[in-house]
Every structure is written in C-alpha cells, then in structure tokens.
C-alpha cells in the first residue's frame, strides 16, 4: 500500500494536481492522496467508470480505458489500471494535459506492476472495509 501511495503522491506532485485516488470496481479506496471525502470520491470514480463503460458497450464501442472530464476549474481523469482497478486524478485548470497524460500512463504501469506482484492486495482492501 505504501508503494501505491508513493506513486500517487509522485503523480500529484509532478502534475501539480489536487488529488489522486486508486479505487476498485466496487467503489472502495485502495490508496489515495489529498482526497477530501475519500469514500465519496471513490464511489463517484467507480460509478462514472461503470456508466462510461456501459454507455460505450451499448454503442458497440467496446470497453473504455480512459475517461476525461473538463470542468469549470480543471479536469477529472479516470484511467483503467486493470479490469477491477481505476486510477482517478483531479487536476487543476492550468495543467499541461500532454505532460499529465504521460505521467498518468507511467503511473498506471507502475501501479499495475505492483498489483500484479501483490496477490494479497485484494485481501488488504477487504480488511480495510
């Protein structure tokens, strides 16, 4: 879990973002950095992702691997880590999107390798509930 938090912290620092949250498909937080109302944010990330995927599937566009929302004050980005894990990033308006995407991709790869290596993670998430 520490490794995941380190990756999220680096992502937030390098992209000057507000918060990053790693959640599972049930809306439970696996790791997070700077997220206020963490439980609520986790559920919203998983919900948005589910709705996007359902919408995409219904349009025969396949699954989704990235979700991008432009808000009045910045961006919300969701990216699939694997089938059951989603990385959410809340970024500021003045962020450099290209750079942010690059860091996001790199973070997903790092997280993915940790999740693949850590077979106990699922148990850890459940023990937090």
């Amino acid at each position, binding site marked *: 879990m520490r490794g995941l938090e380190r990756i999220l912290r680096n992502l937030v620092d390098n992209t000057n973002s507000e918060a990053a949250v790693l959640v599972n*498909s*049930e*809306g*439970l937080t696996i790791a997070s950095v700077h997220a206020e109302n963490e*439980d*609520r944010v986790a*559920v919203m990330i*998983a*919900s948005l992702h*589910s*709705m996007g*995927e*359902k*919408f995409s*599937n219904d349009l025969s566009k396949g699954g989704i691997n990235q979700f991008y929302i432009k808000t009045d004050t910045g961006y919300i980005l969701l990216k699939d880590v694997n089938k059951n894990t989603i990385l959410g990033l809340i970024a500021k308006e003045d962020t450099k999107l290209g750079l942010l995407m690059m860091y996001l991709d790199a973070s997903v790869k790092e997280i993915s390798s940790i999740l693949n290596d850590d077979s106990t993670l699922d148990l850890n998430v459940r023990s937090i509930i």
Partner: protein
Amino acid sequence: MLHQITKQILSELPDQTKLNNEDIQVLKRNKEFVFSLANVLVKDFYDALFGNDATKAIFKPGEREIREKSLGMWMVKTIEGKFDLDYWSWQTFVGILHVKRRVTNNMMIVMMGRVTDIIITQAVLKLPTEEALALKTAWIKFANTTLSLIAEAYHIFYMKAVSNVTGMNQNLLNNAVKVEIDNLVDQNKKFRI
C-alpha cells in the same frame, strides 16, 4: 428469476408471520364470506384512490373499470387459497408493475390496510367471534406477506433497473448508497435516539 426472488423474500420472514396450514384452512372456510365483500371492497378501494390527487394521477382516463376487474380477479384468485410459489411470485410481479406505474409503497401499504380493515370489521360484525379472530389472524398474515413481497420487489427491481442502466454492479451501488446514507445520518443526528 421471479421464483428465486420470491423465495428469497419469503425466507426472510419469520415463520410466525407466515400463513400455516391452519390459516389457509380458515381462509378457505371463509371463502364465500370474503367473496361477498368483493363489490364493497373494490368500490371502496378505487373511491379512495380516485379521491386523492397523487393516487388518482396514476390512472389513465377511463382506466378505473379495467382496474376494478383486475382487483376483482386478484380477490378471486386469492380466496381460492392456493398459496404456492406461483401465487406468491405473482405478488412479486405486482412489485415490478408498481415501479412501472409509479405506485409507491406508501400508497400500496395504506390500501392493503384499508382492505384489511374492511374485512376484519365485517368479520367481527358477521361471523362468530372465534371464527372472526381466526380470519383476522389469517388475513393479516396473508396481507403482510403480500405487502412484504410487493414492497421488497419494488426495491429490488428499482435497484436492478438502476444497476442495469448505469452498469454499476450491486456492490458498487450498495457502497454508493452507504456513503450517501452515512451523510444523511450525519445531517439528521438530532433524530437519533
């Protein structure tokens, strides 16, 4: 699927609240008596529903006659006393129809209460005391089981519809609801005992 959900809902009701063989015999024995109340019950039922703006709004113009026939059929089938899984699944199906027609559980519960009130009152007035009490017990068990099925089916299928349309799995929905409910509990702390 309806059978499975019906079984699940019924399994969550304590045995003391469910119809036993004796209750079913009481209902069968009083079949003619309950059926003699059908016209009064049906008229009272729809007079009440059409006397309230919210419940009246559920119906389309000219629909009352059709609904009255449906309620009459429900009574006939009910007092036959064949309370098998198909019968109870039919009540579960009513819960789905109620979602479709926006017949909310508060409306449904008070109307079942109204029917129960009329049947018990008439039983007390017209049947020997012991038989009236036996019918009261049997009818209340029947009515409460029906209420449980319709209300719980309403909830289950409402959530299922939300889950299907949004793609949110059941655990995610439950977590989303939990987060929201925790928030509502915090906002309404003063009502906690």
